[in-house]
């Protein structure tokens, strides 16, 4: 059951990712990315992280991707033209990416056995546990994040504001 779901949504992820890769128009890429994220959310559920799944849908598929589409529209970016600015990206980069994948895959598979299986349904981590950790053990990072967001806002303002 789980396995089937995993393969369905995992496949969906990969498909979406590949679609992002092959679509020429940014909007399509954006949409396919949303697909990826949503199906990831499902996988989170399978891994027993409901809250995260929700957050994933809301924050990612919702907020962030909306922002993306918004900017795409704003700059009304058309189909990307196939310029050939970079040989290295193909000659070096793609093999690099492939090697990277190969290496990671090898590592995971070779160590996979020790990982064992997912145990569905077991011990759903409740929001309570989350908040306990988040606001107690990781209080400081949480607070510091506010600085991060400040910086982001400031930066966005500073950069996007028109010169006069």
């Amino acid at each position, binding site marked *: 059951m789980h396995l089937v779901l995993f393969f369905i949504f995992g496949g969906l992820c990969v498909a979406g990712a590949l679609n*992002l890769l092959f679509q020429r128009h940014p909007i399509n890429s954006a949409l396919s990315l949303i697909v990826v994220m949503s199906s990831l959310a499902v996988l989170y559920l399978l891994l027993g992280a409901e809250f995260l799944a929700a957050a994933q849908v809301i924050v990612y598929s919702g907020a962030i991707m909306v922002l993306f589409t918004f900017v795409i529209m704003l700059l009304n970016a058309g189909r990307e033209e196939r310029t050939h600015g970079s040989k290295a990206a193909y000659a070096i980069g793609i093999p690099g990416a492939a090697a990277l994948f190969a290496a990671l895959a090898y590592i995971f598979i070779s160590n996979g056995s020790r990982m*064992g*299986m997912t145990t569905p349904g077991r011990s759903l981590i409740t929001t309570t546990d989350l908040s306990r950790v988040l606001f107690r053990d990781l209080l400081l990072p949480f607070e510091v994040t506010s600085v991060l967001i400040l910086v982001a806002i400031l930066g966005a303002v500073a950069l996007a504001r028109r010169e006069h």
Partner: protein
Amino acid sequence: MVPISYYLVLSAILFSIGVAAFLIKRNIITVFMSIELMLNAVNLTFVAFAHYFHQVSGQIFVFFVMVVAAAEAAVGLAIIIAVFRTRNTLNVDQVDLMKL
């Protein structure tokens, strides 16, 4: 009953596709998206391990990653706009004024 390693491999696949996309896509925004894809792949790993260790901190980490992603998105898109203003293009290949 799904081996954790499956999730890991899946994340590896997504991550690598992200990398490949970064390399191949010409539109800056799409390139940026591929970064988001990579981050998502990482998130999957975190969640998988969190499940494995039955640990909260892993999931928390994902939260923070999301926040960071959001922040980056804001800034990144602002930068993209700035570039578009000066260059009037969104093609990465044409943003190579400085070289050698």
